[in-house]
């Protein structure tokens, strides 16, 4: 009898511990659908043709936010980076040029007022993940932690709508905490600051914030 008791006792103990730690970590529950992204990884944003065409929002591709004639990598053209050392002054100078160009990237004025839907990664602006009123949306993961931030025409300043249902709130909070993915639908605006440098950027007054649905997108659009 006593050997059986010990065995049952041990099993019971382990079960208890497992359940309790689950209950505790259930507090910071990970979104079941969030996978872990690699730094710099982008989302496939080409909408599948089969995705319902009846929504009033046009599914926007991040590339569309850059003018067709603007090449983010222009300064690197003509340089064969594979033949150069990292510390080669030409490479450094070229990178500097690229970064400067990214600081002041041109926008597409025609997009002002467009009703779009676009998925991306969240960069938090304020410190309270429970009460997010605005945030930045960027095309790839880790934009402010490990890799340089994107050009200014690839940064969307999102204004969160006042009413979100529980699922949307949870998805948003999760995305803010994990720098994760979210899908924003709303009206895109181009904002110009009247300064000597004339900095322009995109802002989107979101009507709805939703979890990113990977099934509606693919890399190729098929």
């Amino acid at each position, binding site marked *: 009898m006593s050997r059986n008791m010990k065995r049952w006792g041990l099993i019971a103990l382990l079960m208890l511990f497992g359940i*309790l730690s689950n209950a505790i970590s259930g507090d910071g529950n990970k979104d079941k659908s969030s996978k872990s992204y690699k730094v710099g990884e982008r989302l496939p944003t080409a909408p599948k043709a089969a995705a319902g065409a009846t929504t009033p929002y046009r599914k926007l591709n991040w590339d569309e936010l850059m003018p067709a004639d603007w090449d983010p990598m222009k300064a690197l053209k003509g340089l064969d980076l594979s033949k150069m050392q990292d510390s080669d002054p030409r490479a450094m100078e070229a990178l500097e040029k690229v970064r400067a160009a990214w600081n002041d990237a041109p926008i597409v004025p025609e997009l002002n007022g467009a009703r779009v839907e676009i998925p991306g990664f969240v960069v938090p602006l304020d410190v309270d993940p429970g009460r997010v009123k605005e945030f930045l949306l960027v095309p790839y993961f880790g934009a402010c932690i490990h890799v340089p931030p994107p050009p200014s025409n690839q940064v969307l300043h999102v204004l969160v709508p006042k009413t979100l249902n529980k699922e949307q709130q949870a998805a948003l909070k999760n995305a803010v905490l994990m720098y994760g993915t979210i899908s924003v639908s709303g009206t895109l605006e181009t904002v110009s600051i009247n300064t000597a440098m004339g900095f322009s950027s995109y802002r989107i007054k979101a009507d709805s914030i939703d979890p990113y649905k990977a099934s509606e997108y693919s890399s190729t659009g098929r």
Partner: protein
Amino acid sequence: MKHLLHLAWRSAWNRRLTLGLTLAAIALSVTLLLGVDRLRHEAHRGFSLSVSGTDLVVGARTSPVQLMLYAVFRIGEATANISWESAQQIVANPLVAWAVPISLGDSHHGFPVMGTSAAYFDHFRYGDSQSLVIQSGNPFRDTFDVVLGAEVATGLGYRVGDSIVLSHGMGEAGLPEHRDKPFTVKGILKPTGTPVDRTLHISLEGMSAIHLDWVGGAPMPGFSIPGQYVQKVDLTPMEVTAVLVGLKSRAAVFRVQRQINESPVEPLLAVMPGVALEQLWQVVGVAERAMLAVSAMVVVVGLSGLVAVILAGLNERRRELAILRAVGARPRDIFLLMTAESLLVTLGGVLLGILLLLVASLLLAPHIQSAYGIPLRTILVSPEELKLLTALMAIGLLAGLVPGYRAYRISLTDGLMPRI
């Protein structure tokens, strides 16, 4: 069913000494678990309410977490300062809407003193975009005016018009004081629930003034400038600890951040508060989870102790179980009886644990508030904690099933004639 509960209660009460010890063990473990969890939540909550609407915090090049800690949460000390020239450059940046320099380093009875411009009170926001409100008095105007945070005023019993002396450096006691230049309390802020409450606010000029005749952290012997002459000197600060920045376009944050980080004047660090705070939580998160795991283990240990005590006592109770069967109890009733006893003790332990936590937080809250600026709400139990407690009770129920089942089996085999 009711009579079984009555029996369980009488039985448990009869063995109240041993069961009382296990109840106390469970209570302490619940206090520990709940306390750790609550402290964690309150710290997260307190920090996340402490600043709002600030796009960048700029300081000397240190770690983003450290910069946030001393510049925003007033915990710890700055490793280095930044020059006034850099601060001015930031103000001049065309993308910057407002920039407020702050200067830290002095204290008063353990509360940090912060030198800043009047713009701080206009632009600083906390919580849900709430501004700072002066409850009594006025903002500072003269060089030696000070505006107190709510905690400082109530903690030290100051009122508008009082005269106070600031100490050089951070620490509790034994610090050199700026005794020749006392400050007058000009205003007291409304409570905010943030580190603002435990801060004394003076002007940047005031901060410069008290350090004019000091070099290297101590007053220069034989050389002191009396208060009334100080104001004739140029009191523009030479350096500040940090600058809080708000931008004209929030989407420009990356660009301005890069500009500042690449400043040719000196090594600067510009951090986005949200990102830096997330980093802090990631670092702390490991410790948090470890502590919670340990606390959970302690609860399991407490429950195991209860199960062991009840199991151990079962042998002596075989006669009692036989009597119960003789008067008509079914094995199922015996099972319910034992499980109910176990549950009663568990429930008692949980309730006592919650009470103990309440007492502990009432005693410790003022200290934590003044030391870390984290307000501890004295609540009985929060909704999230209720979930935790429900899980705990569920586990207590599972644990209670063990002696229940054992008693059930004993009762079946013994019947009316226990083998004693």
